[in-house]
């Protein structure tokens, strides 16, 4: 008796066993993934204000388009793919398992009809003797045979690489292993960021979720440097880092070099060279137009200071030698930007060795104050990406399984040979799981040599 509930479960099972669903899921994932490559992902929605109307932003946000690879519907598709994969495997595996572990060792007439490679050899010798010589031929030319007897008829069966039938399932298993690895990574790992000034020691990092995380050790940046190719392109960004435990340097992790493509790994946490900057200070003397009231002024990079008269300034660039940029001039110079209270701003260069130019600039632009540059002090900082991912080994295991599985699924075939020895007649049959044409040649060749072998025996 079938109940409606059972029918429903049955059709649900059939639905998930269907390869049409596989096609649908693979193609849908391909098409849907395009969205996230067009709409930049993982940046705050306010950033889109310039390009999209508020209504669109609201719509996209509710659909999860700004972080679509983590949206419920994308994850749902991945889960459906997994269920589909498992269901298909459960449905087909028992049959394949039978083929692999319980081979058909007798060449019945109906099996013979289903084979695409068959041949017969006439032979009037005693079947037992013939059987033995065929068996030893198959053993040396193909693989270890299994011999059975039924009603005076001998059956010889031999096969090569039957396990490769399972490789497709191995590939599918590898997809699931990769999923498991990535889930472990997202549950128990983290990604973060840390900036360290030269000479500074830090033991906290900032996570992507904007929470702080305390490391149980500390990092000190001993030095940061940038080297360049002769054409000015960057060649290397290098941080020299020392790991400290309880304030003491750890041997083997003292003055270690961290460059792009060569991270620092300590206690399962990895630090990657990612960015850098200058947090140094620039020094100025500010005077009236006539040189009176000199005031010393230090401006930190990336911040601004207030000047007498209500204006504020910050430094956009500085150099220790201006001569390559301004022929005829020499010494340090800084490019500054000055904002006046009425919203106007101007950008100009002040010099250390050319006070007259600084005064001239102030005069032509109003009443002062006059800025004189006194040089700067560099203080580099390094930006390190921090990551811990305990699932990554499982992901690599899955990848390895996938590569071997795909190789075996495509390039290794399960080949079988059957021989039936009756009085006066030998029947040979063979089949392969793939690459039929190559096997047909091998088969014909084998039969030819078997014929010769039998004649020689006589």
């Amino acid at each position, binding site marked *: 008796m079938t109940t409606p509930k059972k029918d429903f479960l049955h059709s649900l099972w059939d639905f998930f066993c269907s390869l049409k669903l596989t096609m649908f899921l693979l193609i849908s994932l*391909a098409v849907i*993934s395009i969205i996230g490559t067009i709409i930049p992902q993982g940046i705050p929605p306010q950033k889109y204000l310039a390009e999209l109307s508020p209504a669109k932003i609201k719509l996209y946000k509710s659909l999860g388009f700004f972080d679509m690879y983590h949206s419920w519907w994308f994850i749902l598709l991945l889960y459906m793919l997994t269920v589909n994969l498992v269901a298909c495997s459960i449905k087909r595996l028992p049959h394949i398992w039978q083929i692999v572990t319980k081979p058909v060792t007798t060449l019945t007439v109906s099996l013979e009809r289903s084979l695409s490679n068959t041949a017969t050899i006439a032979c009037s010798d005693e079947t037992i003797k013939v059987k033995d010589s065929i068996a030893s031929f198959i053993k040396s030319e193909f693989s270890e045979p299994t011999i059975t007897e039924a009603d005076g008829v001998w059956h010889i069966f031999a096969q090569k690489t039957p396990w490769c039938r399972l490789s497709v399932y191995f590939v599918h298993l590898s997809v699931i292993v990769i999923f498991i690895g990535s889930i472990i990574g997202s549950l128990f790992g983290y*990604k973060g960021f840390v900036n360290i000034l030269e000479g500074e020691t830090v033991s906290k990092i900032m996570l992507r979720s904007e929470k702080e995380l305390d490391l149980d050790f500390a990092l000190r940046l001993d030095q940061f440097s940038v080297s360049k190719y002769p054409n000015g*392109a960057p060649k290397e960004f290098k941080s020299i880092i020392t790991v400290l435990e309880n304030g003491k340097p750890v041997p083997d992790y003292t003055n270690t070099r961290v*460059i792009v493509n060569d991270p620092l790994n300590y206690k399962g946490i990895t630090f990657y060279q990612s960015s850098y900057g200058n947090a140094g200070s620039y020094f100025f003397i500010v005077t009236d137009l006539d040189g009176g009231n000199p005031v010393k002024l230090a401006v930190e990079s990336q911040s601004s200071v207030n000047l007498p008269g209500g204006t504020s300034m910050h430094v956009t660039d500085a150099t220790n030698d201006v001569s390559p940029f301004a022929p005829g001039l020499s010494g340090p110079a800084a490019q500054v930007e000055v904002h006046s209270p009425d919203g106007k701003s101007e950008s100009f260069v002040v010099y250390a060795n050319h006070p007259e130019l600084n005064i001239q600039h102030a005069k032509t632009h109003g009443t002062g104050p006059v800025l004189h540059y006194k040089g700067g002090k560099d203080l580099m900082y390094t930006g390190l*990406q921090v990551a811990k*991912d305990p699932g*990554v080994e499982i992901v690599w295991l899955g990848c390895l399984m996938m*590569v071997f599985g795909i190789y075996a699924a495509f390039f290794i075939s399960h080949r079988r040979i059957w021989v039936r020895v009756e009085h006066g007649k030998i029947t040979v049959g063979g089949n392969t799981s793939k690459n039929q044409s190559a096997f047909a040649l091998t088969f014909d060749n084998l039969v030819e040599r078997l014929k010769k072998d039998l004649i020689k025996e006589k």
Partner: protein
Amino acid sequence: MNSSLLFNITTFAYLISMLAFFAFLASRAKAVGTAAILIAYSGLLAQTTAIALRWKESYDMGVGHAPLSNLYESVVFFSWTIVLIFALLDIKYKYRVIGAFVMPFALLGMAWAQLGLHTGIEPLVPALQSNWLLYHVITCFLGYAAFAVACGISIMYLIKAASDGGGDKESEGGLLSMFPPIRVLDDLNYRAIMIGFPLLTLGIITGAAWANYAWGTYWSWDPKETWSLIVWFVYAAFLHARITKGWVGKRAAWLSIIGFAATIFCYLGVNLFLSGLHSYGGGQ
């Protein structure tokens, strides 16, 4: 002899080879087909030498690195892999005429590289200074090239299928008589993808391994990564199409063509139209 002259010779050889393949289609003269394939092989030889020479030249300049570091070098390498995969297929299956549908891709690549791209040898930016670059680029491009060949074969399949009018009888005479039978084309398409799919899989994995080593995340849904996954999904669908009734023949050929279009977008479109981590030679 320098690499730049040899690259020009290569381009010329691919042009002549392509024209010879067209002539072979039209004339059905076996000698023409042999000439076409021999010219393609000499082009491949010239290009192999040129790539090796360019590698050496970069060391002479003191910025030594494998010639896979910018758009020009990658397009040249792509073109090389296409002819290489075609040569392997030709040696194994001997269906010369496929050259008429594959050599145009190789020629297009070389012509664009030689005429339209900046050919100078540049030093490697820090982001690319890794041996992973070599493994990643070589596996990806061999995969892409196999897909290019599969695409050429699929186009032949669709042309032939259209002219056969769905029937099984072979059309007599005309250009199409040179085409391999429709079943063979279908099979060759599958075989080319059987070469390409494992290579693309390896390419994605080596890319992930590199990203994990250099940035700490093996996958960050960057547009290039995502597009490589899109391509991978399309070809996975193609492979499963064989097992599903109703998705073979023409539909499979279309999947192969769509797959190659996605491949090209992944390779070039992403850099031209979308922003991400992969912009060739972009560096910091």
